């Protein structure tokens, strides 16, 4: 079985590794590149824990071969914080708004929310809920995840976050 070279740009850095053609992107990221922030949850493209950003698209990295991403620009949770360690607005928001409990879904949630806010900088609550409908969280009931994304949207738009009355 022949190995193939897969070269991509991950979080701004050019990387490459020899992998089998059947290597899934999530395994390439975690095992070849040591980027274990993206999680394997269901491994069946339902839960979204493995979501990364590929060429401006949110993709479940358990359902794409590394070879299909050849040459792509990939952003993972490790690339969200600044080089100085300053949290991205979404990371800060998930902390401030208690958008996680166990944290397993969080990298996928943040990567999906990142693309959602790129496409729709000021989403309604309904748009946020539909936007993260491919990401499962078994702890929070989603309420604080939605608030976190609203908080991050406000911060990125340079306005104060006001929590809606419940």
């Amino acid at each position, binding site marked *: 079985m022949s190995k193939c070279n897969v070269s991509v740009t991950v979080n701004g850095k050019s990387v490459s590794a020899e992998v089998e053609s*059947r290597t899934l992107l999530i395994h390439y990221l975690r095992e070849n590149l040591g980027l274990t922030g993206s999680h394997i949850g269901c491994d*069946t*493209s339902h839960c979204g824990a493995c979501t990364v950003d590929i060429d401006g698209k949110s*993709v479940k990295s358990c*359902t794409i071969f590394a*070879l299909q991403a050849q040459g792509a620009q990939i952003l993972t949770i490790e690339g969200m914080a600044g080089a100085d360690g300053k949290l991205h607005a979404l990371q800060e928001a998930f902390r401030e708004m208690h958008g996680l409990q166990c944290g397993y879904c969080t990298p996928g949630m943040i990567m999906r929310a990142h693309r959602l806010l790129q496409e729709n900088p000021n989403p309604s609550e309904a748009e946020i809920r*539909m936007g993260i*409908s491919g990401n499962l969280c078994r702890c929070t009931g989603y309420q604080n995840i939605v608030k976190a994304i609203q908080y991050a949207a406000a911060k990125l738009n340079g306005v104060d976050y006001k929590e809606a009355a419940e």
Partner: protein
Amino acid sequence: MIPGTFDYHRPASLSDAIGLLSKLDSDARVIAGGHSLIPMMKLRLASPSHLVDLAAIAELKGVRIDAGEVVVAAMTTQHELIASELLAAHAPIIRETAALIADPQVRYMGTIGGNVANGDPGNDMPALMMALGASYVLRGPGGERRVAARDYYQGAYTTSALPREILTAVRFPAPPAGHGYAYEKLKRKVGDYATAAAAVILTVSGGRIATCAIGLTNVAETALFAQAAAQAVVGTALDKASLAKASAAAEAIAAPAADGRGSVEYRRKMAGVTTARALTRAFARATA
């Protein structure tokens, strides 16, 4: 879950792809978005020895008008279908349906070609293509041919495409301006396949339905073209009696399996219910 081994090919043109399929083992498979095939490979329900990735083929991308028909190239993703202004103007039912497929991540990858080609009865686009009177463009070593969506499906995962053919596009005549449309999908949760779903395209003239076409999703081994159900409402103003006749006609051709979505009886009934709901919504749109 680790798929079996395979050799990966990424041709840059359609003719290269067909050339590859002609010379590779007959179990070579084309891969589009991969969101049906890769899960099947991970479960070892599919173990192709070669994968021919269509992602680099520019001619398989995009939406255009050609000879009075709307042409959607096979590798156009669900996300791109939703974003297409051309489709929103000519066939808004495609946006309505695409938005109900799976979830955002899957829609960035999943393609219209993959959705219609592989013959999964749970896929949403085949019934819609039947309602639109679409044809599928198949290209193989022997050239190009077109097959009507209504004739394409033979059974679950069995279609009239030949092993070395690639479905390159779907094409359909744009429904007339002012037509009514609806895709009514009953499902348990976001991302689920339909318990039952109905696609309706109709036109209204003088307050009465002039033309109507209905397709049904996931209530049989293939999508169904519900001709009798459509016939039941043509010439009517969609009164209660004709709506009931249409529902009964849809139920009569439904042959669903019992699964986690419900019993045979329930899912057959839902074929009728979704048909009535889709007809009602489409009629309201056409008469608004």
